[in-house]
């Protein structure tokens, strides 16, 4: 997916991608990131709202924020380990 700088966070724009696409993008992004880095995944998929917070907690990372934008949601996650 498209990667770009947004408030210094690494952004994965997964809008338009269906379940479980955005979650998979997040996992890929977290794997590439260093501990302490913050990643954003942008999603328009309805499954992400449950799946992304669930995975983030299970995998031991920090859900920094869930930000509503028109037509999509920004999930902000900090890699913790």
């Amino acid at each position: 997916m498209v990667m770009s700088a947004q408030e210094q966070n690494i952004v994965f724009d997964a809008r338009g991608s269906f379940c479980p696409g955005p979650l998979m993008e997040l996992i890929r992004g977290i794997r590439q990131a260093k501990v302490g880095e913050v990643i954003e995944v942008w999603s328009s998929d309805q499954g992400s709202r449950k799946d992304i917070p669930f995975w983030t907690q299970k995998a031991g990372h920090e859900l920094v924020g869930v930000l509503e934008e028109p037509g999509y949601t920004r999930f902000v996650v900090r890699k913790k380990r």
Partner: protein
Amino acid sequence: MPNKLSMVVFSGTVDRLYPVAIMASGAVAMGMDVDVFLTFYGLDAFRNGNPKTLQKMDVNYKEIAPMLAQLMQKKNVPSWYDMLQKAKEMGNLRVHACAMTLDLMGLKKEDLDPIVDDVVGVGQFVSEAKEGEITLFV
């Protein structure tokens, strides 16, 4: 006890292979191992060349299947095969071919798509599935 999803994939139509790929992706995302056992039409879908060209849909849904296929194309949904490959890159997903079906069709491992890891008997698959929490028949 291993954290595992096992699937017996009997069906070889695109509409059923999608849930296989999506369930496999979800399980891998949640850190589970995935074992897929291909048999009958499910195995036929994995013969060399078939995964990328397969267009068969379940005839029970012939009124809506073409519409769904069209929508998926329009909305750039990745193919079930691409999803399955990504899941395999991401975690421990193993694809097994049913020995009985291969013998019946006169096929060898080399006649199957490279995503298939090995050929196993039903005994081995069932023994391994027994160790997991979830087994699905698709």
